[in-house]
């Protein structure tokens, strides 16, 4: 049976919104624990933007689903296997180098994706994308500056960031994984064709990494897949048990 456009869009929006939610949660873990006070503030700010995007996108997802679920219901009352975020964002926060490696890989793609989604025929989605694009431009700037500072800083910072880039690289294919649902939405002109994203992303990233005196990770490395179909790493369940504890414990309460 063919998937209806609304159902396809629901699925697509979960991928988009869950990415924002889960990474927002990981970044929030830095609050009060950053390497310097300015960075506590910057990472909290980025986290806050991501939660804002997640809320808007998941509310729209709920509307598309038509079952009366809003962003909170979707965030707090789904199991790990129902989350559609990519594997990259659910990985533990690691050290600051890992956070920065993940931020540059994720934010650069997010910026390019939002830019495309401003052209969506769904006006709500196009509107969210317009605002998110501006914010994610700042996220790219923030991460890029740290890639340069750590890559071209001390021998220690260079080694740490290189190692972190190599670590996150196996999740990059999952970040761009695409399927029949995206194809259907593109065919129906609901979202633009996203096939060109990866190439643009790779070019921009390569340029930055070279400038930071780092090297690109091994392109032949084995790639982990599964996030978009709910096949997650074990980290997600633990994160959700923390995120969801109150509404799950008191399902009748309003907060």
């Amino acid at each position, binding site marked *: 049976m063919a998937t209806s456009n609304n159902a396809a869009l629901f699925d697509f929006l979960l991928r988009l919104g869950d990415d924002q939610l889960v990474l927002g949660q990981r970044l929030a873990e830095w609050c*009060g624990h950053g390497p310097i006070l*300015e*960075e506590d503030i910057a990472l909290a700010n980025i986290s806050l933007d991501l939660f804002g995007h997640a809320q808007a996108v998941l509310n729209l997802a709920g509307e598309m689903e038509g079952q009366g679920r809003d962003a909170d219901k979707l965030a*707090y009352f789904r199991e790990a296997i129902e989350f559609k975020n990519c594997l990259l964002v659910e990985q533990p926060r690691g050290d600051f180098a890992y956070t920065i490696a993940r931020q540059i890989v994720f934010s650069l793609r997010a910026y390019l994706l939002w830019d495309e989604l401003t052209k969506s025929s769904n006006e709500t989605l196009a509107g969210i994308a317009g605002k998110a694009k501006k914010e994610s431009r700042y996220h790219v700037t923030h991460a890029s500056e740290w890639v340069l*500072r750590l890559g071209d800083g001390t021998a220690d910072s260079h080694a*740490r960031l290189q190692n972190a880039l190599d670590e996150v690289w196996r999740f990059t294919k999952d970040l761009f994984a695409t399927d029949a649902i995206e194809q259907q939405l593109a065919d129906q002109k609901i979202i633009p064709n996203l096939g060109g994203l990866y190439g643009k992303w790779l070019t921009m990233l390569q340029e930055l990494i070279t400038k930071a005196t780092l090297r690109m990770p091994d392109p032949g490395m084995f790639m982990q897949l599964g996030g978009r179909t709910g096949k997650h790493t074990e980290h997600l369940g633990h994160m959700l048990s*923390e995120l969801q504890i109150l509404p799950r414990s008191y399902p009748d*309460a309003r907060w």
Partner: protein
Amino acid sequence: MDDAAKLKEFDDRIARGEIFEPKDWMPERLRKQLIRMMSQHAHSEVVGMLPEGNWITRAPSLRRKMILLAKVQDEGGHGLYIYSGVESLGVRREDLIDELHAGKAKYSSIFNYPSLLWSDMGAIGWLVDGAAIVNQTTLAKCSFGPYARAMIRICKEENFHKKQGYEILSTMMAGTPAQRAMAQDSINRWWWPSLMMFGPTDKDSPNSIDLMRWGIKRKSNDDLRQRFIDMTVPQAHAIGLTIPDPALKFNKETGHWEIGPINWEEFFNVINGNGPCNKERIAARKHAHDEGKWVREAAVAYAQKHSSLERRAA
């Protein structure tokens, strides 16, 4: 002009209600007191991020999560302003932080209590930020320019913090029996420590004399505490919370709420490092600082490398 004449002139300026700036002459004793007081204040903002940061990942809705995150982020911003203000007196932020980690500098003892329930986010916002506003509103009129200006800006944000805290509690008090019980438990634990935030009673406050003489403190600890009590008790009653003080009563003649005795032994215990979370708070700050050392070194190395490259290119 000799020091006695300078001091006389300074005293006269203060008496005329003038504001003084970092480059102006000031008594050395006052400079030391200001550094101590402002750095304690900055440390309090930063350590104060921890008990609330403890609940960001567990906030019960996306809206609450964003409000709390924005609030804790504000506290970090306040820390930055005040560190910058105190740096204008000729000290460096790094040295002040080292003193904090070495246990030589103090911070507000309230942050040595644990946040155990979500309703604690309500109690902290309403009581702790509420008490801070009472303190800081008078500091906004103090005689030292950088401090007064920082306080004006900070107070605006603190008002929003207090409001969100009260809203958390009023929503919970209108909720299920379990929620009401949690809200009451939070008030039971945070009420007395928030009264202690104003510091010891006037007769036991050794630093107050100089600070009042030169217009930094404009009201005594006990006056500010009373103002806070008078404001807060009716707010508690309005949403059905009980103040955990059997001696609490309203004096119709004075128009003030009178409280039972404050447990100053507990206060001095917490100040001296024996509160429930003193060790954890400093350990968390120290851990973040130590783990971040390589990052700060990288930023410095990058800046040096690139400024010399730019000089060569020029």
